[in-house]
C-alpha cells in the first residue's frame, strides 16, 4: 500500500478510538515537553553563561605580544621563548588585521598618569578602549554615556576611582579633569632612543562604570580611567615596552605596542588566527580552551537533564505499546479482512507502524510546544523574582530550532520503536483465525 493511503488509513483508525489515542498522544506530549523543557533550560543557561563570556571579548580574541616578551610582563604562554625577535609595531598591526576572519586589531594602551581634579592629584592608570568594547556588556548599566567617537576627548571613570575623586560620584559626569602623563619623543638620531616629556591633557567626564572593562590580558594593571583608543594612541604615552626595547637593544624610531588584541569573527576562527599570528613571529594567546571546557560542562549537564526527562518519554512509550496491543485485540477481525483482501504481512506491520508514528508525531509537536511554554513560564517567573530583587532580567530557557526538530524526531523514533512489537504481532495474525474472531 502507498504511504499516503497507509497514512490516511492510520489516521482514520486513530480517530476511531479518539479518546484513548488522545490520552496516549498526550502521554507522549508530556514526555517530550519535559525533555524539551529540561534541554531548553540547559541551552538557556549555556547561552546565558557563554553570551556573557563572548560579550566580554575574552573568548573571541587573540592576545598578541612580541615573541621576546619580558618574563612576567605578559600572558603566561608568551613568556621568554627563543627565536627571531619581531617588533609589534603599526606594520605588524596592519599585517595582522589583513588575516582572514579578523574584525579589528587594537593595541593595549595603558599608562600611569596623574589626574588633576579640584586642584588635587590622583595617581592612576589610563586605559585606551576601542569603541567595540561597548558591546562587551561591561558598560551595560553605566551612568552617563559611552564615548561619542574614537578621537573624542572624553573619559569614563571606574566607580572606585570616581569615589576617590568625589563622594557624590554622579556629580562628576559633565565635569572636566586633566591628566598628566609622560610622552615618548623619539630622538632624531639612529640610536632608537627617546626622551620623556611631561604632558597634560584635558578630558571631559561623560560616564561612570561599575565594572572593570579594562581588566584582562596584555597590559599591566587595570585601567581605572578609560579613554577612547584613538585619543590614547595620539598621546604617544611612554609604556613599559618602550623601556623593554631600550634594555634589549631593540629600540626603534617607530612606535611599538606592548600587546595587540585581535578580535575574531567568531570563536571558531580563534585557533586559526592564533596559529597565523604565531607563524608571523609573535606570541599569541587565547582563552578558547577555557571556553571549550565550559561547553563540555554544559553538554554533560544537557545529557543528564535529557536522561531524566527521557524517563517520562519511556513511560509514554509503554502507553503506545498498550494502546496498539489493545487496538490489535479490537481490530483482529479487521486485520483478517485486510489480509483476505490481499494485504501482505508487511502492509499490516506498516499500518501499525504508521499509527505509532502518527501518535509520536502529534505527541512530539504538542510536546515541543508545551516544553517551549514551560520554558517561557520558568523564564517569566524567574524574571519576576529577579525584578523584585532589583536584579536585571535573564533568559534562562531557550528552544532553538534544532531542539524543536529533535523533540519531534525523537518522539517519532521512540514511538516507532514502541510500535515494533504490536506491529509485528498484528502482521503475524493468522487470517483465518482473525476472521473467525468475534
Amino acid at each position, binding site marked *: *500500500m502507498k504511504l499516503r*493511503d497507509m497514512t490516511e488509513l492510520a489516521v*482514520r483508525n486513530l480517530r476511531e478510538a479518539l479518546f484513548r489515542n488522545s490520552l496516549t498522544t498526550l502521554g507522549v506530549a508530556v514526555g517530550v515537553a519535559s525533555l524539551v523543557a529540561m534541554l531548553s533550560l540547559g541551552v538557556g543557561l549555556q547561552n546565558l553563561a557563554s553570551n556573557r563570556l563572548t560579550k566580554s571579548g575574552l573568548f573571541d580574541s587573540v592576545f598578541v605580544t612580541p615573541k621576546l616578551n619580558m618574563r612576567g610582563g605578559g600572558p603566561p604562554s608568551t613568556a621568554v621563548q627563543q627565536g627571531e625577535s619581531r617588533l609589534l609595531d603599526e606594520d605588524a598591526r596592519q599585517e595582522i588585521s589583513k588575516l582572514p576572519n579578523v574584525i579589528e586589531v587594537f593595541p593595549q594602551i595603558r599608562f600611569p598618569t596623574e589626574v588633576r581634579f579640584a586642584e588635587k592629584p590622583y595617581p592612576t592608570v589610563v586605559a585606551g578602549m576601542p569603541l567595540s568594547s561597548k558591546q562587551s556588556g561591561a558598560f551595560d548599566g553605566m551612568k552617563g554615556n559611552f564615548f561619542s567617537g574614537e578621537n573624542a576627548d572624553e573619559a569614563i571613570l571606574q566607580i572606585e576611582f570616581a569615589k576617590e575623586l568625589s563622594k557624590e560620584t554622579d556629580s562628576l559626569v559633565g565635569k572636566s579633569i586633566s591628566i598628566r602623563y609622560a610622552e615618548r619623543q623619539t630622538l632624531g638620531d639612529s640610536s632608537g632612543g627617546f626622551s620623556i616629556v611631561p604632558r597634560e591633557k584635558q578630558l571631559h567626564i561623560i560616564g561612570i562604570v561599575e565594572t572593570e572593562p579594562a581588566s584582562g590580558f596584555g597590559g599591566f594593571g587595570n585601567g581605572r580611567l578609560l579613554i577612547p583608543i584613538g585619543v590614547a594612541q595620539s598621546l604617544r604615552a611612554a609604556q613599559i615596552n618602550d623601556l623593554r626595547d631600550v634594555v634589549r637593544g631593540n629600540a626603534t624610531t617607530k612606535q611599538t605596542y606592548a600587546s595587540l588584541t585581535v578580535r575574531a569573527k567568531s570563536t571558531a576562527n580563534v585557533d586559526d588566527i592564533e596559529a597565523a599570528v604565531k607563524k608571523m613571529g609573535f606570541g599569541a594567546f587565547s582563552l578558547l580552551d577555557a571556553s571549550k571546557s565550559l561547553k563540555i560542562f554544559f553538554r554533560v549537564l544537557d545529557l543528564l537533564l535529557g536522561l531524566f526527562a527521557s524517563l517520562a518519554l519511556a513511560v509514554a512509550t509503554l502507553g503506545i505499546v498498550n494502546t496498539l496491543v489493545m487496538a490489535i485485540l479490537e481490530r483482529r*477481525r479487521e486485520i483478517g479482512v485486510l489480509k*483476505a*483482501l*490481499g494485504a501482505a504481512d508487511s*502492509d499490516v506491520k506498516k499500518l501499525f507502524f504508521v499509527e505509532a508514528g502518527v501518535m509520536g508525531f502529534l505527541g512530539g509537536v504538542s510536546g515541543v510546544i508545551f516544553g517551549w511554554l514551560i520554558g517561557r513560564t520558568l523564564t517569566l517567573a524567574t524574571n519576576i523574582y529577579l525584578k523584585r530583587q532589583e536584579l536585571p532580567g535573564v533568559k534562562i530557557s531557550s528552544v532553538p530550532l534544532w531542539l524543536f526538530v529533535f523533540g519531534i524526531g525523537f518522539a517519532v523514533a521512540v514511538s516507532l520503536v514502541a510500535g515494533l512489537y504490536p506491529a509485528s504481532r498484528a502482521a503475524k495474525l493468522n487470517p483465518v483465525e482473525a476472521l473467525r474472531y468475534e
Partner: protein
Amino acid sequence: MTPTPGSANSNALQLDRVSRHYTLGSSAIRAVDDVSLTIGSGEFVALLGSSGSGKSTLLNLMAGLDRPTSGAIHAGGRNLAELSSLELARYRRNTVGMVFQSFNLLPRMTLAENVELPLRLAEVDRDERSARVAEALQRVKLDKRTVHRPAELSGGEQQRTAIARALVNRPKILFADEPTGNLDSTTGESILNLLLEIQSSLGMTIIMVTHERPIAEKFATRLVIMGDGKLLSDGANAGAALGVKSGVEQ
C-alpha cells in the same frame, strides 16, 4: 483425481491430495483429508456439507488464506502450498475475491471506501480507483449509497457491497463462504442471482460454501459434498439450469 464435470476449457484450480490437519491438545483433527479436486474456469461450484465437514477449511485453502498440511493446490500454474507469504497475499489480491457470511465490511468506512480497499492494497491510481469503485457499486445497484456506512444498510445491501468489494479487483475466482447465511431466503436468492449475473457477464469461477442444499441445487452447476474432511461426492447439478433461470426471473 475426480473428473471435471461441465464444459470448462481450462482449470481454475486443481487440488491434489490436499490435507489440513490441526492439533488440538493431544488429539489431531483432520479438517480436510486427502481431497483431490479439479475446478474448471467459469464453473459455479457449491461446496456442501454439514457443520464441521471441512468445507470452509477447504475454501480457505483454495483462497490462499491457509496452507495445506500436505498436498498441492495449483492455481494459474503455481502451487499455493509453495508460495511465500507475500506471494500468497498477491494471489489473494489479484486472483481471488472473497465474500463472507458476516459481510466483513469495515464499519467506520463508507460503502465506497470499503469497496476501494482492495484497490488501495493493489496500489491502483486514485483516478482509476474512483472509476472502478463507481462501476462495481453500479453493478450491485448501490451507486446511490456510496457515502453510507455499513450500519445504515440492510443485510442484503451489505452483502451486495461485499460482492462489489470482491469484484473490484476483477478476480478470476470468487469465493463465497455461506453468502446467504445471514440473510432471509428472498434476499439470499437475490444475492445468488446477482452472483450468477456477474459470473455470466465477467466469466469468472465461483466457489460457494453452503449448508443449504436447495440453494446449491438451484444455482450451482456442480455440487461437491464433503463429510468429515473427505470428499463424499462430486457431480454436475442437473437442475441448475432451471434453477438459474427461475432465479433470474425472480
